[in-house]
């Protein structure tokens, strides 16, 4: 019995101190660590895919119809660092970093807001999508149909309904 105890004691002695003196000493996180997400304001097109998939609604979208501005808001207080936003972003604008020290004395540090200008519909004059989103979509739309992108959803469906009825005739 005594021998057992001595062996355990020896093992403990051999291991020594393993506790790191964090935060006075930095801690390394591995490659691929899911830390603080941030939005690249240059790349974001304001499509809202991230806000759609975000499980805790840390990402949300607000449209300011008066100013014609779409706001993409990221609130780190709700974020669970799952990285679904990164998965679905079509332009790789939102990315998770390896940063994990998020405590701050100012609650505003936990928010990131991206404001993007919106375009007016050519027919009804309503703000309907961000300019960047229209430009991004245009790449995948055949040239002859591109003018349709300048219309809001409702007007566009009216116009395309017309096309379809012409085609039937």
């Amino acid at each position, binding site marked *: *019995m005594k021998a*057992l*105890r001595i*062996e*355990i*004691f020896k*093992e*403990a002695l051999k*291991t020594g101190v*393993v506790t790191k003196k964090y935060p006075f000493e930095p801690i390394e*996180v*591995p*490659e*691929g*660590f*899911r830390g603080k997400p941030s939005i690249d304001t240059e790349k974001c097109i304001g499509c809202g895919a991230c806000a759609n*998939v975000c*499980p*805790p609604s840390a990402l949300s979208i607000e449209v300011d119809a008066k100013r014609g501005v779409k706001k993409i808001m990221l609130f780190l207080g709700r974020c*669970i*660092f*799952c*990285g*679904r936003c990164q*998965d679905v972003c079509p332009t790789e604008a939102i990315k*998770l970093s390896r940063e994990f020290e998020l405590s701050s004395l100012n609650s505003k540090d936990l928010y990131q807001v991206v404001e993007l200008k919106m375009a007016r519909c050519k027919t009804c004059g309503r703000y309907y999508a961000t300019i960047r989103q229209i430009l991004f979509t245009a790449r995948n739309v055949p040239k002859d149909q591109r003018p349709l992108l300048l219309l809001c959803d409702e007007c566009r469906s009216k116009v395309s309904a017309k096309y379809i009825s012409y085609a039937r005739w």
Partner: protein
Amino acid sequence: MPTSIYEVLELMRKYGRIEKIHKDTYIVEVKADKVKDICSILHWKLGGHFSVTVGSDERLINGYFAIYHVFLLDEQKISIIVHTKANPAIPKIPSITPIIPGANWHEREAHDFFGIVFENHPNLERLILPYDWPEKVYPLRKDVSIEELRFKILKPETVKEKVKPEEEYIVPIGPYHPALHEPEYFELYVEGERIVDAKYKGFHVHRGIEKVAEERLTINQIPFIAERICGICGYTHNVAYCQAVEYAANIDVPLRAKYIRSILLEIERIHSHLLWFGVLFHLLGFDTGFMMTWLVREKIMDLAEILTGNRKNYGMNLVGGVRRDINEGKIKLSLETLDYVEYKLRKILNKMLKLKEIMSRTKEIGLLSREEARKLSVVGPVARASGISTDVRKYHPYAAYGELEFKVPVYDAGDVYSRVLVRYDEIFESISMLKQLLKNIPKGDLMAENVEVPEYRKGLGLTEAPRGENVHLVITGRENKVYRWRPRAPSYNNVPSTLVMLKGENLADAPAIIASIDPCFSCTDHVVVVDVKRGTRRTLRLKEISRGRAR
């Protein structure tokens, strides 16, 4: 005594219409008056065990309330769901608690949430809803929305409960205390040093994530809330949910994804068991053991972080597969870590369990006989320490477990020491499984191609969590949502057994007994709270209280 699947199904056919909902899972629709008979046969004669009762408001689908009693038949490797309908105007169903005492909490929960009355239930009191919850408001019914609930709930009142102390002392252990890592509340009635009776009150942190999931979240958002049901073994909930939906929608998950799931589940089991060893040693006053086991555990946590990007919330699953791959470099690193962990554990843990102090504090303490265990339908290591060989991985294989070789450790003594040994063996089984998985992982896709989820299909997801079997019943809904999701954590079945174990024991042993089932109170309430680091503080409190009284 029917033994083959065919014979069992023939027997079931006598009671009602039988339907196969997916692989190895059958649903039997029976009339209310036959529920007791069929449940008694399934639990007591066919060698199955009662797993969970799920209430469901299906008035929008077929106009009835439904009750599902889920039974797992380990011998035949199938699960049978007994489905009964209840009249929406006067929902009444005969209770099965008189036959299977383990169903007590399950039926009370369905009563709380759906207002279904279980006839002849021994005490159909409130279990989960607080005392000041308004009468006749049933939160999980579909005609009550979250917004409505917010306004309907009254302001909290203080309710004083009458206790009848005679010559006994009451020793309260727990809750409503910020220093405890989970709100548990045990009342121990003692005569001198001996515990004569025990009471448990839980569900202080029930936040109704089922309601949130059913009303607000989409199918692929729920895995992330499911992962946060438990602060230690969250990934197993995540897998169970995804499996339930995959079965319901008939989605074929690629083999590589299944292997990755199994790898992470086993990593989770090792870290959970090591955490438990640390907590137990700490409770017994053996802090060297606590430090040493947690030192090894930290290596496993680091490994999980490297593989998934987070120590605890792996976030690896979506319905249909996994999100991240494990490359060659990571496989090599994992194998190296496992070698180290195995070497280290064989060297130290083995010796620690042989210490006289540990033996005398755990052997023949907190006894749970096989009969009691069957009655309460306990699961996981607690059942295996009482001589019941049950393991979802073995008998209802999921993920990649069907292709692995492993043993299910079973001990007969039913004391705390057996529970220690079961977990000790399981750690090494897990390491061997991980090695097989890492060496044989096949190449292929990570996500199923077609992940369409049809509406109103049922799926039963089973996983073996570190604490026991973990059951998720999912009924899919419209517009990419679930209609009903009922997660049942293993502690839900295990916690009632502590009351049996505590009776007749010394007060000073109470913390070790309560800890021996590896309780996860917040999981039982299906919620989010646990902080792994604070785990020690809870146990310290428990210890302080019991020591203070014992002196």
